[in-house]
């Protein structure tokens, strides 16, 4: 055996993976060849260093304690979705609805504000009535899974679903216990007929909004926009087919709950008694990371979201979102269920709003379901004519940049556009300018941690993935001036953060 032959077998020799005859020949050669002896020593050192390095590298690499709960939830979801029709729509369509709403001026099919409608549905969607007898949950994820299962089963509940919810909102995070506004939302839903009725009043009982549907019409009243006018619109075939709980905002609300349910960082804060009921309190603590000049990463606490579930029925009783500002935790939203019940199917509910006093009914033409939006491609120079516009300072190799102007340009708002970076392999990074957003809305809706770039921009993550994808990153990017951009990318968060660092303001 010569040196070349011997050296090609040295690794296998060290690993004890040569045949007895090969072993004898290698040993005979080594006894007489200092070059191969030295090579053997070097390879042996490399081999043991690789072993040690691999062991050390994984010594603290352990799966999350919630790994099984997460998997169990996904298995249950798969099993459920294969046996019944899915309750929740996919996450991404919710996000795309949001985009569409922003680009079409925030008008929803039912002309209800996104948040109010969203909250109404959210409240309805979560009032579940399935009792899991004497099962003690061991993790937040299991509680969420059971709450979701309860929620899913409620669709089949007979009768009329009735809820009354108290909602406190303080979207600009003003300090003080009573800085926000409180409203009471009441809803009735009859799944068998597809009829629904939602009303919102202030704390003095004054009607703020109403939205109902019967077998022929949708009705809505927005006191702020159009005082005393009930708009009546003939229901389309599609509306009737979709049933009582339909509309863009409900999809978004479903998405929000789904995000929370899929968030592995949600922890069980404890079990306690509230209003005479045994409840579980879950918490998601939110952090913002940023890179310091010395290369270290800073992580600061930015707020929490708490959810309270009944320990027996797993009905969602309360939720509360806070932001941490000026060393204080400020509540920006609190939702509490005052009534949550299933009424007999023959309960009299006024579905056509004829019980309202001092209102006038106006018949409207049916709205277009989704306005077709036409986009125009523009150059970077054209974009640079507008303030608060951003692009990457360098287009990465293999990527193309496309800038698209939105046809809707609301006055007093930053210029609306999208910028897309794509490569042939299907990788993408997209920003969509959506104007100034309430900080509270952003923190409440994109609630999965955040990253502060050296430019001062903050990227608030969503746990939702971009449309038609199980991977990637999405979130809301907010500039120091408050201009906001929806961000979608096929890349990981680390990669997206590097790209965000490279964004420059054109003007």
């Amino acid at each position, binding site marked *: 055996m010569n040196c070349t032959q011997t050296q090609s077998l040295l690794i*296998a020799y060290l690993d004890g993976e040569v045949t007895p005859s090969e072993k004898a020949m290698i040993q005979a050669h080594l006894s007489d060849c200092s070059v191969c002896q030295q090579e053997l020593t070097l390879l042996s050192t490399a081999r043991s*260093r690789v072993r040690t390095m691999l062991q050390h590298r994984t010594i603290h*690499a352990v799966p999350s304690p919630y*790994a099984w709960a997460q998997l169990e939830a996904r298995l249950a979801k798969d099993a459920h979705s294969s046996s019944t029709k899915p309750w929740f729509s996919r996450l991404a369509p919710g996000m795309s609805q949001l985009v569409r709403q922003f680009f079409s001026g925030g008008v929803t099919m039912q002309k209800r504000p996104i948040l109010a409608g969203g909250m109404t549905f959210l409240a309805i969607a979560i009032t579940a009535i399935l009792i899991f007898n004497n099962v003690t949950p061991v993790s937040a994820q299991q509680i969420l899974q059971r709450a979701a299962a309860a929620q899913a089963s409620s669709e089949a509940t007979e009768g009329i679903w009735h809820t009354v919810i108290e909602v406190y909102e303080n979207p600009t995070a003003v300090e003080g216990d009573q800085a926000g506004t409180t409203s009471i939302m009441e809803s009735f839903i009859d799944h068998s007929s597809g009829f629904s009725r939602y009303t919102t009043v202030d704390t003095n009982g004054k009607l703020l909004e109403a939205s109902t549907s019967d077998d022929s019409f949708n009705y809505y009243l927005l006191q702020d926009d159009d005082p005393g006018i009930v708009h009546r619109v003939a229901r389309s075939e599609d509306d009737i087919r979709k049933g009582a709980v339909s509309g863009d905002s409900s999809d978004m609300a479903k998405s929000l709950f789904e995000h929370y349910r899929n968030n592995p960082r949600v922890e069980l804060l404890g079990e306690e008694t509230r209003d005479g009921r045994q409840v579980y309190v879950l918490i998601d603590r939110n952090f913002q990371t940023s890179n310091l000049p010395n290369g270290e990463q800073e992580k600061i606490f930015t707020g929490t979201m708490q959810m309270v579930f009944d320990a027996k029925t797993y009905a969602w009783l309360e939720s509360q979102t806070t932001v941490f500002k000026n060393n204080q935790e400020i509540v920006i939203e609190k939702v509490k269920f005052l009534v949550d019940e299933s009424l007999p199917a023959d309960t009299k509910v006024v579905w056509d709003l004829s019980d309202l006093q001092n209102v006038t009914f106006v018949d409207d033409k049916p709205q277009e379901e989704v306005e077709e939006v036409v986009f125009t491609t523009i150059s970077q120079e054209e974009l640079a004519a507008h303030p608060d516009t951003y692009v990457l300072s360098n287009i990465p190799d293999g990527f193309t940049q496309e800038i698209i102007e939105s046809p809707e340009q609301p006055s007093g708002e930053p210029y609306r556009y999208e910028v897309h970076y794509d490569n042939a392999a299907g990788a993408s990074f997209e920003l969509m300018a959506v104007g100034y957003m309430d900080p509270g809305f952003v923190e409440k809706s994109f609630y999965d941690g955040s990253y502060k770039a050296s430019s001062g921009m903050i990227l608030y993550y969503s746990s939702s993935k971009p449309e038609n994808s199980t991977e990637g990153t999405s979130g809301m990017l907010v500039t120091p001036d408050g201009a906001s951009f929806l961000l979608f990318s096929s890349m990981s968060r680390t990669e997206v953060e590097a790209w965000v660092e490279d964004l420059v303001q054109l003007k």
Partner: protein
Amino acid sequence: MITEKLQLITCAQAGDLQAFSEIFEGYKNLVYKTAYLVLNDSGEAEDALQEVFLQVHKSLSSFDPQKGAFTTWLHRITLNHCLNQRKKRHFSSLEEISPPLSTNFPSAQLAEEDALFQATRLLSDKQKAVVILRYYWDLPYSEIADILDIPLGTVKSRLDLALKTLRKIIEEQEMNARPVSQTEVSK
């Protein structure tokens, strides 16, 4: 012990979720650690853990203990998933080496290990897979060949190439770390 595992697998194949949870507990580290070493990111390793066990749950009925060990099958699913994930990464220039999770080892040793780990980026994904199966999981060449569905000779040649690449890096490290001798100073 083997019979116990087989019983668990049989129960899980019949739809027993409790049995499947015990399989998960028993093998989650195998999947997670391999994923962590291949993907070099704890978040991606978590995702891989979920995806691999979803795949295992889905195809458990097709697992035949007569044809090979459960761990061989699991290693195969894990590596297939992780290597596919790597293929989907189109941004190798942006791919960062994450620092090792905190340890109590001396910093000089850590620096060397970090450099060595960075050097593993020079290996192809196929070579890396063989290195992990051999030097992390201590699997015999024959089992590695089974897992990756390659001939025994290919296992040998991939390990040979991988170790020789890494050996060169270590050699360079040692050259750089060598103290300057008095003779060299006087020159």
